[in-house]
């Protein structure tokens, strides 16, 4: 299936395709995003921005199949979403919004990074866990409980988990919201390196514009794309 994707990818180079997609939350009549059509190509770094409630996170979660659209078609890496979501997601890395685990969580950093391998049929070992943590400059956190880390450190650990999966696409939801300026720049550098060296497509939802060279900026308002 990967080979099939690769040949399709070479032909059209599109990794995400949306055609007139509308999504609403369960029990709500008003759509959270409406009539969105867009294409994202392999190796692009794309920023999705807009005010609170614009539908940025909804769009990201709809592309990943976490929310089901009631209208329109979505293709992620050539797979039809949400029908083939489980297959498509194996090639994706995801950093959710406001991800902060409280003190007392029964998981250490090593476990959290190792979990990234659970769905891709790869064995987690100290070598590949350390390699992933090295990419985000967080090797010293290896044996620390996740709940005792700062928000910025937890972001880095989740980033390491996403990178450990060697994703084709990275979906990052507000990765800069709870980190300081220095950590923000570090994350930007990591992402640019990843994009440059491994041609990973990166989709960032953020209400702030970080210092990173974007190929495209998608602006949203009231559930609609206003510029692309």
């Amino acid at each position, binding site marked *: 299936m990967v080979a099939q994707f690769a040949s399709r990818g070479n032909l059209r180079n599109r990794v995400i395709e949306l055609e007139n997609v509308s999504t609403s939350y369960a029990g709500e009549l008003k759509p959270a995003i409406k009539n969105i059509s867009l294409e994202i190509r392999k190796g692009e770094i794309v920023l999705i921005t807009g005010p609170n409630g614009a539908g940025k996170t909804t769009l990201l979660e709809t592309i990943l199949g*976490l929310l089901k659209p009631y209208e329109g078609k979505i293709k992620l890496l050539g797979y039809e979403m949400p029908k083939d979501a489980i297959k498509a*997601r194996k090639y994706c890395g995801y950093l*959710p919004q406001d991800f902060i*685990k409280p003190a007392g969580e*029964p998981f250490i950093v090593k476990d959290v990074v190792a*979990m990234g*391998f659970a*769905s891709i049929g790869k064995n*987690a070992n100290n070598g590949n866990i350390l390699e992933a943590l090295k990419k985000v400059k967080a090797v010293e956190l290896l044996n620390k409980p996740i709940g005792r880390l700062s928000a910025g450190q937890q972001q880095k650990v989740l980033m390491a988990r996403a990178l450990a999966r060697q994703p084709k696409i990275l979906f990052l939801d507000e990765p800069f919201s709870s980190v300081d300026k220095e950590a923000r720049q570090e994350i930007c550098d990591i992402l640019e390196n990843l994009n440059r060296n491994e041609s990973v497509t990166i989709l960032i939802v953020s209400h702030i514009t970080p210092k990173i060279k974007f190929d495209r900026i998608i602006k949203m308002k009231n559930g609609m794309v206003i510029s692309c």
Partner: protein
Amino acid sequence: MLTILIRAFIAAIFAGFLCGLMGVHITRLNLNTVAFSTAHAALAGAALAMFLGMEPSTIGLILAILTALFLGPLADLFHIPFDLFSMSLFSIYTAFAFIFISISPGGVISAQAVSSILWGSILTVTSGYTVFLSILFFLVLIYIIAFFPQLKSLLFDSKLAEAEGINVKAYKYSLMFLSGVTVSLILKLVGGFLVFSLLFIPAASAFLLSENIKLILCFSAILGSFSAVGGIFLSLLLDLPTGACIVLMATFILIISAVYAHFFGRLRK
């Protein structure tokens, strides 16, 4: 008498172990209400059996297993939050239990038969029951060992696990099913009122003792078994109801765990 006691202690070891393991999973995944709905399905099933003149515990067990099997898929199908659906079923089953008891021939006798499900007894532990419990014990153990990486990811954060391509629904449904079967089987031993305690108290003690999910699962299973065996021993010694003594034992362990955690912290490795 000795055979009954040996069987009861073996059943208690399996029951405590199973409840300890399932308790950690359902607590972390907020599936606690699955225990309430399946336990009351067993009660309603038993009452229905009394009304129809059939064997109460078998019908109770069948209805509880069916509930555990279809609870998750039906909640998703009707887009009802799982907890809400589960607690609605709990109320519906309780209502049906009362109706069947009241219209059964010889109401008082029926009520007494059904109440045995609420209180539990070691006298109901047959060799067939122990075999059934041991099969479930090995199935649960194999399931957890085989899918531990995926389950661990789910226990950490189910949304993240789903976004990474883990079939979260399938794992949640299977855990609900195994929890439901565990609860409905263990009802016979500890009773419907107290089965929840054996599910949640050892898990609470284990969460106090460790910060490592593997250790938490091991502690919860061991403490569950210890509570069940200790409780039966206590009940024989003091001639008190079995279920209540199991809860007292589990609570005693919880207090010791809280004191230990307060003074020595929680184990990480």
